[in-house]
């Protein structure tokens, strides 16, 4: 099995590469349609901002390519957020694979933003083996419940795991979430 890590300019590509390497899985990091075509599964990493990632996908003509992937796709953090229709971050039109939009957490003294650290994922019954603590670093979240599979509480109870057809999105960083993160990546591999 070879996994394509879609290089949309953000950092953290190496972390994702290493996390699959620890699981014995080969990866290709690329932003070229030719190099990415025909692989077994894809990861859309996300560190940076929604507008920067979307602009990069546009520049590399990857938007239609991603929408048309029929193999499993895992969007991580901003990679998940851009699967929705729209993000408040930089007033950005996103991929529109999942219904809904991305909003900013309302910060105050009791709710520091970004959400930074380990929080609990609570999944629907059929995925409850994935329940546990994962690492989050995000200022934005979705208030959509379209295809929601798991939730996290941070000021609001929001969708932090989504699965629509072959597209899976997680707001947390499985590549940085120790044992639970490894288990989650293994779950993703079982869908491939």
């Amino acid at each position, binding site marked *: 099995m070879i996994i394509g890590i879609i290089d949309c300019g953000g950092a*953290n590509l190496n972390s994702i590469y290493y996390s699959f390497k620890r699981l014995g899985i080969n990866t290709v990091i690329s932003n070229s349609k030719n190099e990415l075509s025909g692989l077994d599964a894809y990861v859309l990493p996300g*560190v940076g901002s929604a507008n920067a990632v979307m602009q990069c996908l546009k520049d590399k003509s990857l938007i239609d390519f991603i929408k048309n992937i029929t193999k499993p796709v895992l969007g991580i953090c901003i990679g998940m957020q851009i699967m929705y229709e729209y993000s408040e971050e930089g007033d950005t039109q996103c991929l529109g694979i999942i219904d809904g939009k991305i909003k900013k957490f309302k910060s105050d003294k009791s709710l520091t933003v970004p*959400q930074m650290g380990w929080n609990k994922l609570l999944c629907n019954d059929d995925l409850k083996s994935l329940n546990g603590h994962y690492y989050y670093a995000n200022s934005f979240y979705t208030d959509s419940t379209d295809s929601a599979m798991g939730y996290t509480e941070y000021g609001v109870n929001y969708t932090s795991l989504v699965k629509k057809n072959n597209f899976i999105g997680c707001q947390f960083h499985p590549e940085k979430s120790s044992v639970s993160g490894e288990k989650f990546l293994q779950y993703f591999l079982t869908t491939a």
Partner: protein
Amino acid sequence: MLTRRIIPCLDVKDNSVVKGVRFRNHEIVGSIIDLAIKYNNEGADELVFYDIGASTYDGVVSKEWVKAIAEKINIPFCVAGGIKSVEQAKVILNSGADKVSVNSPAIERPELIHELANEFGSQCVVVGIDSLMIEDDYIVYSKTGDENTATNTSIKTIDWIEKVQELGAGEIVLNCMDRDGVRDGYDIYQLNKMISISNIPVIASGGAGSMKDFKNVLTQTNSSGALAASVFHKNLFNINDLKIYLKKESLNIR
């Protein structure tokens, strides 16, 4: 609910992990990778690597050890030390670090914080602040990696905290300098004062000597986490035992 983080800090100098007392007299405590793996396996929530020589000697952290760490551990880590530009930060983040922390270079050129937040997002940008009480007020120090270069900036800590938030910092590590390495408890008073003006996470640093010190800082302040070095390096207790203790004390710990 977000859990409170326990964060070992590894001060790196000349490719080894070192620890001094009150930022002075550094002694070598071990290899970077060995300690990173040890803390990862013990249940650390995050690691911070401070290249304490970089800012004072005009260097920048080498990316090879950053890559080596990213390859071996699967928890987030932050790298600090002499990062002065978006380009330098990009090398560190692309090597597998999750955040960069800026201290002295941000004091010299505050726009750096904005540039980093703009390029990578606030969640990647930590500002380390070395703060010391001077005549009834908390003052920011720069270049504290070496006692010969440590400088009183005359900037009030409270003003600097307001400023770094405006510029887009995603987190603050507040090093209470007169507690550093002396292991007699975190500076609860200063931390509460500074956390009360912060809308971004603040990590407590300086003074951990016992498990009770962690309990005190996490129950008596709203710090997002507690950072410590010597208690872990000197094996006074391990992180797993600390977390079991804190959970028994009803703290929300992973």
